[in-house]
């Protein structure tokens, strides 16, 4: 590592720290994009098997080159801009969708040292950046000058706002017991406790004491992603394809990339905040990034499973779930956790 640093210092001189940061960004974004590509394949395969089909198997062995073929196809397609659309906003919208999905990864820790920016308020940063993602959807819906796209955008805006509150509340519980907004710290706190002393580390992760919040976070996360069963913003059977109906080619692909990058992000956050991040589930195995990846894959499988299982929520049911079910549960559990922490039975010292 030192040799690499010296080598870089020699070539780039004073701008080496900037170049090194750029290299680190590429090292995060490149595997992420590869993960996105193969998540699309995994989705089609997993849902295929769940519905007793085979899924894509023509391009390459077991269909493994399918995502590359899809990407190339979209790359070569023409981007059609609707006649009476707001051209500038129409082109900016997909960028606004993908940029926050990638920017949020800046503070996601992969192990306790492997993190691009270990800032104090990383949890707040993630919440702020992911809340910007909705603009891509709203603006694409408005700029398309199409009724279906506009309806999709309106639905999405209302849905995002509603579920962000529940999501924020569940995260407040996490930061209360971790006593920190730093994601690395949040994971490290989960390594202590009675069960961790007994070697059963997975029982001292946050998912057990905060079980209702874990469920609320997982479901609100699915809703924030506009994934089935909360995909009213797309709603193929009602509003054709929702907000991205007028998009084609690479502009459409950007929305697709943003959705899957966000899926991986929410999976990573769920793993970090409730499932112990890179910590190993049992005492005798070493911690490592492999555990984080395994937990992320599990959460991603859950998302795919949801899509194959549940029918789409009706719009009023969706709003009811967000406002009348999740927010009261969060408020009550917030008080419960607060009292628990102050009582003699506290498990967080």
């Amino acid at each position: 590592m030192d040799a690499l640093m010296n080598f870089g210092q020699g070539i780039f001189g004073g701008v080496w720290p900037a170049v090194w940061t750029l290299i680190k960004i590429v090292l995060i974004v490149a595997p992420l994009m590869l993960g996105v590509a193969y998540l699309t394949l995994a989705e089609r395969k997993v849902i295929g098997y769940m519905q007793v089909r085979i899924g894509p198997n023509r391009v390459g062995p077991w269909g493994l080159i399918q995502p590359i073929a899809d990407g190339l196809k979209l790359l070569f397609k023409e981007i059609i801009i609707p006649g009476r659309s707001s051209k500038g906003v129409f082109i900016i919208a997909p960028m606004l969708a993908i940029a926050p999905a990638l920017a949020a990864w800046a503070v996601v820790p992969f192990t306790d040292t492997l993190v691009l920016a270990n800032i104090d308020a990383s949890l707040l940063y993630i919440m702020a950046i992911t809340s910007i993602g909705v603009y891509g959807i709203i603006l694409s819906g408005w700029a398309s000058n199409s009724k279906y796209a506009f309806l999709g955008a309106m639905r999405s805006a209302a849905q995002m706002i509603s579920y962000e509150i529940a999501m924020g509340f569940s995260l407040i519980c996490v930061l209360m017991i971790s006593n920190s907004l730093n994601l690395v710290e949040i994971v490290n706190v989960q390594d202590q406790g009675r069960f961790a002393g007994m070697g059963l580390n997975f029982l001292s992760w946050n998912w057990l004491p905060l079980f209702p919040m874990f469920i609320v976070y997982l479901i609100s996360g699915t809703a924030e992603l506009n994934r089935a069963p909360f995909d009213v913003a797309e709603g193929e059977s009602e509003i054709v394809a929702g907000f991205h109906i007028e998009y084609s080619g690479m502009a459409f692909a950007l929305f697709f990339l943003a959705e899957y990058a966000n899926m991986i992000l929410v999976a990573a956050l769920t793993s970090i905040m409730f499932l112990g991040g890179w910590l190993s589930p049992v005492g005798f195995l070493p911690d490592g990034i492999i555990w984080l990846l395994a937990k992320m894959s599990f959460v991603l499988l859950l998302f795919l499973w949801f899509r194959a299982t549940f029918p789409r929520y009706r719009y009023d049911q969706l709003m009811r779930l967000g406002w009348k079910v999740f927010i009261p549960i969060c408020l009550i559990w917030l008080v419960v956790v607060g009292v628990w922490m102050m009582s003699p039975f506290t498990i967080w010292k």
Partner: protein
Amino acid sequence: MDIQTFVFFFLSAILVFAALRVITARNPVHAALHLILAFFTCGGIWALLQAEFLAIAIILVYVGAVMVLFLFVVMMLDINMDRIREGFWSYLPLGALLGLLMVMEMSLVLGSKYFQVPAAEAMVPAGVSNTKSIGALMFTDFVYPFELASLILLVGMIAAIVLTHRGPKQSKYTNPNQQVFVKAKDRVRVLQMPVEKD
């Protein structure tokens, strides 16, 4: 010019431009978009001033929530800009007077001695979390003003609901609670009927 000064001027230029476009853009949605850009840039300037909590809070609250709802409403309005611009000259004196008043007030506040903090004192020592210290102050020294502010917000919220509430709904609707708790045997009854012999 060091990098910090450069970033400050860069952000300020964007902020001033965005703020000007908010009031000059002909399309209300474009104006709202520039307002979002202005908030975001403002967050950047606050981060430069080491006010990390404020910087993230403005993006989380204003950019992430308030402006989404704002845009939601603005997009659905059918605004005819020419009609709005008709009374421009007759409203100008009043607007100019109000603007002048605001400039005067701000110069009084910004010129007061409370704003003249030396740069050395304003520096945050390393290792102190901005968010943590704001939280600690809010729940100790300023707990009553803080609770009062939340009470005012609650009153505002209830007032908004009361003002827009139009009495009980006349239309028919389904009760989701009943829907959720429905069992198959409430809806379908399978009867066993003996075969009739002739």
